[in-house]
C-alpha cells in the first residue's frame, strides 16, 4: 500500500526595492528575513549535516550542478520558524519552505501562511532601508511569482515523500505526461514568452518556457521537467523525496490544492503499481511549451506511439485511473475531495476555460488583463499589462491584485483566513514539524541548530545533543505534546527522550 504522501512547498519570492532599483537584492532579502525573526530571542542556526543537493536519484553524485549560495561567507539570513518552516535567503530571493504537511489542504494553509509571513517581514524591514525617514522612502515589493518577464526565473518547488522501493524510472515515465498536461489546471499565467513569439502574448504558466530537458539534477540551468535531486531529509533507506521544480507559485488556493493533491495521487498510484503504461510523449519539452502557449487547452500533443492527445485528455486519463484507484484501494481520506475538484476543473476546461475566472490563476489573471485591453485599447505588450501581470502576485493584501479580487469576493477561497493566520506561528499537528516548531518556541535558547530531520540542543553539557527525526510522520502532537508540555527545559526533554 502506498505510504502517506507528506508534502510541502518551497517558494522563492520576487523582491524589488521600489524607488531604489539598484539596491542589492541579496541585502534586501536578508533585511526581510532578519526583520521577521528579530524578536530579541536567540536564533537557532540551520543544520546542514544531512543536506546534499548534488545527490542524484539515478544513483550518483554530480559535481557542480547546483551553485551553493555563499551563506556562511556573508552570514545570509537563515531561520527556522515556530510554524516549522524554514525562512531564508536563497540566491537573491527570500525563500519560505513550508513545514511538512500530511495532506494537501494543510499544505495550502501553510503555503498561504508563507505569503502572510512575507507581507509582515517586508513591512518590518521597511524602516531598516537606508532611505527610511527621507522625503522619498523606498519600498520593498514582494511578489509570489516566478519570472520578471525579462529572462530570469526563480522557483516554486513541491516536495513529496515517496517509497524508496519504487524505481525512479517508473516515476519519470508516469509523471512526465502528467506534469506536461497539469499546466492547464494550475498555471499562474504570464504575459509574453521567452521565444519572441508574437502569437503568444499570454500563456498558461510562468515557468514552462524555462525548461529545456526531460530529466536532470540542475535547477538553475538546463531545467528538467523531472528533477532528480535525491535528498530525502528523512531515512534514505525508506524514503525518497520527489523534488518537483516544474510548477508555478500559485496565488489561487484551489490551484495549490489541486496541484499537490493530484500529483500526490499519481505518485500513490505509481507506488502501488496501479497505472497502466504511461501515455509517453514524443517530445516532452516541446509539448510542455505548446500546452502552456495554448489558451484553448484543445491542441493535441504527439505521443510516442504515433497517436495524439490533448492535455485535457491526458488529464482525464490520470483522473479516471485515480477514481478507479480510490474505489478499489485504500486511498488517503482527502482523495475524494481532490477528485471532485479535479473533475470539476476538467469539465470546465472542456466547456469554456474562461468559466474558471476566480478559481484558476491563469484564467483569473487573463480575464482581468483582457478587460484592461478592451477598456483602454491596450496592446498586450503595454507596460500597464506587464505591471498587472506582476502586481497580481504582490503579497500585500491591500495592494496585490489577486488579494484585491479576493477582498471583493471575486475569488473562490478554499481555506479560512483564520486557519492561515493560525499557521503563521503554529506548526501542523500531525508531522515532525510539530516537534520542531514547538521546541523552537519553548526551548529557543537551547536549540543550537535545527534542520528538516534533526534538532540539536545545547543543554550546557560538554557535547551537543542531537535528536534525529528521520520519519516525517513521527513527532506530531499525539506523540510529543505531553512530553513538551511536561518539560521545563531542553535538558529535561532530552533526558526524557533518552530514557
Amino acid at each position, binding site marked *: 500500500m502506498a505510504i502517506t504522501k507528506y508534502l510541502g512547498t518551497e517558494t522563492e519570492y*520576487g523582491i*524589488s526595492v521600489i524607488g531604489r*532599483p539598484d539596491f542589492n*537584492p541579496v541585502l534586501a532579502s536578508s533585511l526581510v528575513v532578519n526583520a521577521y525573526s528579530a524578536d530579541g530571542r536567540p536564533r537557532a542556526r540551520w543544520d546542514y549535516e544531512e543536506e546534499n543537493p548534488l545527490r542524484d536519484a539515478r544513483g550518483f553524485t554530480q559535481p557542480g550542478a547546483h551553485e551553493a549560495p555563499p551563506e556562511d561567507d556573508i552570514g545570509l539570513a537563515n531561520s527556522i520558524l515556530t510554524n516549522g518552516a524554514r525562512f531564508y535567503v*536563497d540566491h*537573491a*530571493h527570500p*525563500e519560505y519552505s513550508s513545514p511538512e504537511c500530511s495532506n494537501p489542504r494543510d499544505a495550502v494553509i501553510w503555503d498561504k501562511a508563507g505569503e502572510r509571513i512575507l507581507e509582515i517581514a517586508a513591512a518590518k524591514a521597511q524602516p531598516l532601508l537606508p532611505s527610511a525617514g527621507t522625503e522619498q522612502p523606498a519600498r520593498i515589493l514582494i511578489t509570489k511569482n516566478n519570472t520578471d*518577464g*525579462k529572462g*530570469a*526565473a*526563480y*522557483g516554486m518547488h513541491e516536495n513529496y515523500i515517496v517509497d524508496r522501493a519504487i524505481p525512479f524510472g517508473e516515476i519519470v515515465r508516469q509523471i512526465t505526461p502528467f506534469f506536461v498536461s497539469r499546466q492547464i489546471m494550475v498555471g499562474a499565467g504570464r504575459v509574453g514568452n521567452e521565444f519572441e513569439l508574437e502569437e503568444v502574448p499570454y500563456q498558461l504558466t510562468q515557468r514552462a518556457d524555462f525548461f529545456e530537458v526531460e530529466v536532470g539534477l540542475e*535547477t*538553475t540551468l538546463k*531545467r528538467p521537467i523531472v528533477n532528480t535531486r535525491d535528498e530525502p531529509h528523512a531515512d534514505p533507506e525508506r524514503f525518497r523525496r520527489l523534488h518537483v521544480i516544474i510548477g508555478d507559485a500559485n496565488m489561487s488556493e484551489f490551484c495549490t490544492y489541486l496541484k499537490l493533491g493530484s500529483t500526490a495521487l499519481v505518485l500513490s498510484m505509481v507506488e502501488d503499481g496501479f497505472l497502466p503504461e504511461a501515455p509517453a510523449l514524443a517530445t516532452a519539452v516541446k509539448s510542455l511549451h505548446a500546452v502552456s502557449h495554448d489558451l484553448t487547452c484543445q491542441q*493535441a500533443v504527439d505521443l510516442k506511439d504515433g*497517436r*495524439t*492527445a490533448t492535455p485535457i*485528455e*491526458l488529464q*482525464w*486519463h490520470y483522473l*479516471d485511473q485515480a477514481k478507479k484507484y480510490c474505489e478499489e484501494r485504500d486511498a488517503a481520506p482527502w482523495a475524494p*475531495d481532490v*477528485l*471532485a475538484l479535479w*473533475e*470539476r476543473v*476538467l*469539465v470546465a476546461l*472542456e466547456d469554456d476555460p474562461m468559466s474558471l*475566472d*476566480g*478559481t484558476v490563476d491563469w484564467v483569473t489573471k487573463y*480575464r*482581468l488583463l483582457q*478587460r484592461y485591453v478592451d*477598456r483602454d485599447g491596450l496592446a498586450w505588450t*503595454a*507596460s*500597464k499589462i*506587464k*505591471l*498587472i501581470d*506582476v*502586481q497580481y502576485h504582490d503579497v500585500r493584501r*491591500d495592494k496585490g*491584485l489577486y488579494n*484585491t479580487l479576493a477582498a*471583493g*469576493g*471575486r475569488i*473562490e*477561497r*478554499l*481555506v*479560512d483566513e483564520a486557519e492561515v493566520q493560525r499557521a503563521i506561528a503554529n506548526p501542523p499537528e500531525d508531522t515532525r514539524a510539530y516537534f520542531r516548531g514547538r521546541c523552537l518556541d519553548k526551548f529557543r535558547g537551547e536549540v543550537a541548530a535545527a534542520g528538516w530531520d534533526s534538532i540539536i540542543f545545547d543543554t550546557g553539557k560538554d557535547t551537543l545533543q542531537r535528536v534525529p527525526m528521520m520519519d516525517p510522520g513521527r513527532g506530531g502532537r499525539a506523540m510529543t505534546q505531553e512530553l513538551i508540555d511536561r518539560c521545563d527545559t531542553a535538558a529535561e526533554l532530552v533526558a526524557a527522550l533518552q530514557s
Partner: protein
Amino acid sequence: MSDGGQVRKQRPKVEETEVEEPSTAESVDTSDVDDLLDEIDEVLEENAEEFVKNYVQKGGE
C-alpha cells in the same frame, strides 16, 4: 488519447454528488466589470512604465 479521432468524445457521466462545490466555496461575482476595474485602478502602481523598467529579478533555485 486519440487514433486520429478522440478516444473520449464526451465527458464521462458525472454523479450529482461529485460536482457539488466544496462547502467552503463562496459565490464568485465577476459580473460587474466597471466596478472591478475601478477597484483595481485604485491600487495599481502609479507609473507603469517606470515600474516595469525597474522590475528586474535575479535567477534563482
